[in-house]
């Protein structure tokens, strides 16, 4: 389960030491935009040492490396891959080839470390006009891709439009990414809401993303994590309905019935799948018996 992904700059030791207590389902340890060129080395060493010495509990680790057109990305991977992060986030992902370049390099490092193939997954960050147009190509680039992620700040600069709180300017990109991800059967994450103090605006923005089909949302502030988690968690009503669906299916099976209805509505495969997803999330959030 990955509802929230929290960016933590790779040059902030206090936050890095506490990355797993901030409530996020995943943390993105950032070696790219948050770190100035002069600090790239020290941030890489710091993130490496954090991964080496700290066992983050109950939260996935994503490392955002530097773009492929810089001198840093391979050094980033050389240091980070041996420590087995859950995912690598290549920024400015523009095509399937771009993603495969990163994937192939990771593959070599995995082999060197004696890891099983595709141990470390990819979550390409799509933040250019070309990337949006190639979203499906990126999402289906290789087996290593587990999700794609929309970055609206760089994208709107590339689109030459103003980034607004209403986010009308990224409507197409959001829809395009959700469609591409679902077609490629991977997860899809929404761009952070950048006004740290506007918690109401955050919830509204997260609700919009959820309604469009996003799996979750990234955040640049720990203050946004709880709001995102709440929006992307199933409601009590949804959980109760999911239980009802599964109980109805079970009952029908026992009674040998083929087609079943709940409250006058036929329960078909999509409804069952949705109910299963809701119950999986319920278990992940609240715990429960296997």
């Amino acid at each position: 389960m990955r509802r929230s992904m929290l960016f933590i700059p790779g040059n902030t030791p206090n936050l890095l030491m506490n990355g797993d207590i901030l409530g996020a389902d995943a943390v993105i340890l950032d070696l790219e935009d948050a770190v100035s060129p002069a600090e790239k080395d020290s941030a890489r060493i710091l993130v490496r040492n954090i991964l080496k010495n700290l066992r983050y509990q109950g939260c996935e680790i994503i490392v955002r490396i530097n773009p492929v057109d810089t001198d840093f990305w391979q050094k980033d991977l050389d240091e980070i891959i041996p420590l087995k992060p859950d995912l690598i986030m290549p920024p400015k992902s523009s095509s399937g080839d771009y993603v495969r370049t990163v994937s192939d390099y990771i593959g070599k490092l995995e082999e060197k470390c004696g890891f099983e193939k595709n141990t470390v997954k990819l979550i390409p960050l799509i933040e250019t006009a070309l990337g949006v147009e190639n979203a499906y190509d990126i999402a289906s680039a290789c087996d290593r891709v587990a999700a794609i992620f929309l970055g609206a700040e760089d994208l709107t600069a590339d689109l030459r439009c103003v980034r607004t709180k209403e986010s009308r300017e990224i409507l197409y990109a959001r829809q395009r990414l959700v469609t591409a991800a679902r077609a490629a059967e991977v997860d899809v994450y929404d761009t952070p809401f950048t006004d740290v103090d506007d918690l109401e605006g955050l919830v509204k923005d997260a609700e919009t993303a959820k309604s469009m089909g996003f799996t979750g949302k990234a955040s640049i502030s720990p203050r946004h994590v709880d709001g995102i988690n709440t929006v992307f968690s199933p409601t009590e009503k949804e959980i109760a309905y999911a239980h009802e669906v599964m109980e109805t299916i079970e009952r029908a099976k026992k009674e040998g019935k083929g087609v079943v209805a709940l409250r006058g509505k036929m329960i078909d495969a999509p409804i069952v799948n949705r109910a299963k997803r809701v119950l999986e999330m319920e278990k992940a959030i609240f715990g429960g018996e296997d």
Partner: protein
Amino acid sequence: MSKLVENIGEAIRKTGLKDGMTISFHHHMRNGDHVLNMVLEEVAKQGIKDITVNASSIFDVHEPIIDHIKNGVVTGIECNYMGSKVGHAICEGIMEKPVIFRTHGGRPSDMEKGTSHIDVAFIAAPTSDDMGNCTGKIGKSACGSIGYAFADAMNADKVVIVTDNLVPYPLTGASIPEVYADYVVAVDEIGDPKGIVSGTTKITRDPVGLRMAEYAARVIDASGLLKEGVSLQTGAGGATLAAAKFIKEIMLERGIVGSFGMGGITAYMVDMLEAGCFRSLIDVQCFDLDAVRSLRDDPRHMEVSATQYAGVSGKSAAVDSLDVVLLGATQVDVNFNVNVHTDSNGYIMGGSGGHSDTAAGSKLCIIIAPLTRARLPLVVDRALTISTPGKDVDVVVTQRGIAVNTRYGKNKELKEKLIAAHLPVCEIEDLKKKAEELSGVPASLPLSDRVVAKVLYRDGTEIDTIKAVK
């Protein structure tokens, strides 16, 4: 008749202050105080030596006292808190006699019991008339409550009121009445308003602090104490204040009205009073301008003496009716003893203040502190200085786990309640292990055998000593 004298020098002469005597001060002017320095300068000028200074707190602004110690003017200090500048000098061994640390409740009680004798009290008063009716609620140096000074006024042989806002007799609504005052001195400034109270106390934005604050609020909620009539004290800084924000949200959501908020009062406690979370505030000290305003204008906001706040010499004190207190710590040991006196290098940088008074009086004492600070672990085998004994501490909240003190045969039920509330409960030894995994085990400090300070518990018994740093 008028008690007005020309200046501090004349007041000192009239009180008959002599070598070997004890003079006292309160700390409501905090780091903006001018009075302690002005008085000591005059004492030195008059050639008086061997003076013991009994001040409820010594701040960095009182740094000139270091030279008075070196010159033999001051040979003893008794206080409840000491800032790091003077604390550093004390730990380097500049004074022969050990500093006596008391608690905010122990200090007035020792005066009342006669174990701590004050020859002359100098009381900074933001407003006074010429007979010594005085208050901290109004005036250009308004500090709000002057609760720590009541015992000095009542128990000292001679009392000098020092004000920078002399008003015509009688000042109505005075906090300390004229019956205790011997002399009144008007000066230009008793303090720098910038150092006396802060503008508005801000809640931390540090995500780690906020996480601990949220845990603390959930601990209180799970304990079952967060109900109609609850009483609460929080500190003024960091995570303890942030916890108040979470508690306020729960209280408003459930319509809980508490009996009182207490402390060092901050804008946030005032906000909770005004939002209907409490019926009253019990105020021994104001931390910011909103607290001063509220104390002056709102009859539900009550000024109390340190004895009423936390003393052990009265028939009861407000801390005895306190449900929950949230406190900080620089170190906690595996027996839940808390250090708020010394820093990681062994130097004095604080003091008990009301820490051990409220810990002892409250039903639930929660310590909130990050697991590591500046690469040092919070939890250690033995606190460098025991400020508050472990028997008075119930829960230690860190960002990586919550330890419940079930030693001394208590809190077993509380621990179960916290586990049931899905809080990350662990043993104090686990916290120590986790902290050491992050920061390693610090090397032992090079301390000498020479005692530079004694720490007295609220009942006057010595619970620890502080050694000189080599």
